[in-house]
């Protein structure tokens, strides 16, 4: 199942921004609400071995070009086997976007690797697992 991601589109040049921006970076006009499919192609990626405060090492970051035109910065569980041009899905786990299809354990691990209060983390993990269970059921029915 491909998620839809909130985005915005410039009425002048058609630039799609994800997450949505109020004004187009290239034109002084308000952008229109839009959404894009959470799937695309890896433009580049890296693994930080000394990430900034608030992140655990190693931190995987990718720049992905979504099918709807927007480029998107996101995290990932790993970059093993990833190539420029690889097709990945984007999923929101809590408010954070991750590339590739993630298993339940990956989600738990990713949550713990992002700093936050323990309570928030547990809530987010519970929400994520619930969402996955629901998705699994809907896939099973489909």
């Amino acid at each position, binding site marked *: 199942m491909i998620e839809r991601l909130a985005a915005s589109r410039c009425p002048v040049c058609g630039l799609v921004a994800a997450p949505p921006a109020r004004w187009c970076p290239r034109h002084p006009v308000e952008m229109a609400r839009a959404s894009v499919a959470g799937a695309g192609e890896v433009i580049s990626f890296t693994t*930080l071995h000394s990430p900034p405060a608030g992140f655990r090492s190693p931190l995987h970051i990718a720049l992905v070009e979504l099918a709807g035109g927007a480029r998107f910065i996101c995290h990932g569980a790993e970059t093993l086997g990833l190539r420029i041009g690889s097709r990945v899905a984007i999923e929101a786990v809590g408010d954070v976007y991750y590339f590739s299809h993630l298993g339940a354990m990956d989600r738990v691990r990713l949550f713990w690797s992002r700093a936050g209060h323990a309570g928030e983390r547990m809530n987010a993990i519970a929400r994520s697992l619930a969402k996955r269970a629901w998705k699994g059921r809907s896939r099973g029915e489909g």
Partner: protein
Amino acid sequence: MNDVWVAGADMTRIGRLREPLPDLMAVAAHAALRAADRERPDAIVVATMNPEEFVGDANFASHVATHMGFADVPVIRVETASSSGAAAFYAGFAQIASGLAGTVLVVGGEKMTHLTTPKVSELIGRSIDPYERSYGTTMPAFAALVTRALMSRHGVGEREIAQVAVKNHANGARNPLAHFRDVITIDLVLGSRMVADPLRLFHCCPISDGAAAVVLTAERASVRVAGVGQGTDTLAIRHRDALTSFRATQTAAGAAFVMAGFGPERVDVAEIHDAFAPFELISLEDTGLFPPGKAGSATLDGETALDGRLPVNPSGGLKARGHPLAATGLAQIVECVWQLTGYAPRRQVSCSVALAQSIGGPGTNNWVTLLEAR
């Protein structure tokens, strides 16, 4: 537009320095004024990227002017992230070109080595788009995304990129003011710690302290400012079409060459913003000094070495001379002036036109300056 001349230029040693930032800037400024044989400027332009957080001082233009004995000279501060020095040079240039001032002192400096590396990375990283930053995108992360995309292109591999650092260290070893004065090898670069895959420690410039200054005049001197160009791009890298070239440098170079009335073929020596080694290769192509896709092999073939066809970063560049943020754009110009006037012992190249290129933030506010010996 009046002709603008560089009447004097000087800088401090770059490295881990004890003196407070205002002292470093005063030392560089006084030395540049002596070199220009001027007692006082009509105006001062100060460049610092973030003195509020690096050293805890605000109102920094007045602070520095007062500290160096020019409390009654009009002073402003200019900031465009890591290219602030080049932007301040432009502000001084504009004051003279327009006839508003006859002599302008431009001084830039930064002091960072008293803070921990994670703290410095965090402060520099604030020049990145807030959303991208919220995913842990630091300057090395940005540079790594660029580098991986660059390496997927034909003609740029590990050795081409590593050779930039090797060449710049070899030049730095000949510059008494450089932060690093040791010669390194490709194997040492490729064996150094991975910082942000595929970028290694020896691909990255150091954290440095230092200051640099130039004196600009309407009165004829030995070096003329032939052209200055600025280019900009979106703060967010996700809103750009290209990752392996910087539109901001291309625009800046185009504007500088139009102002100068000549093209890249006239350039004899260049100081390039190699905050990360691959940025030198990208910048050499963005400025038009090398055709697209050729900078890597040219570097490996020695074309950019001191004895090459087009010496690049004779000072050692950001990699070896060091990168005290707002001092850097001016330190590049100081090196160009010294090269053009025959004042670069042990690393002197034969030249009459020099180019300096400075990158602000993640390629958002870039500058190209062209200087000509007359």
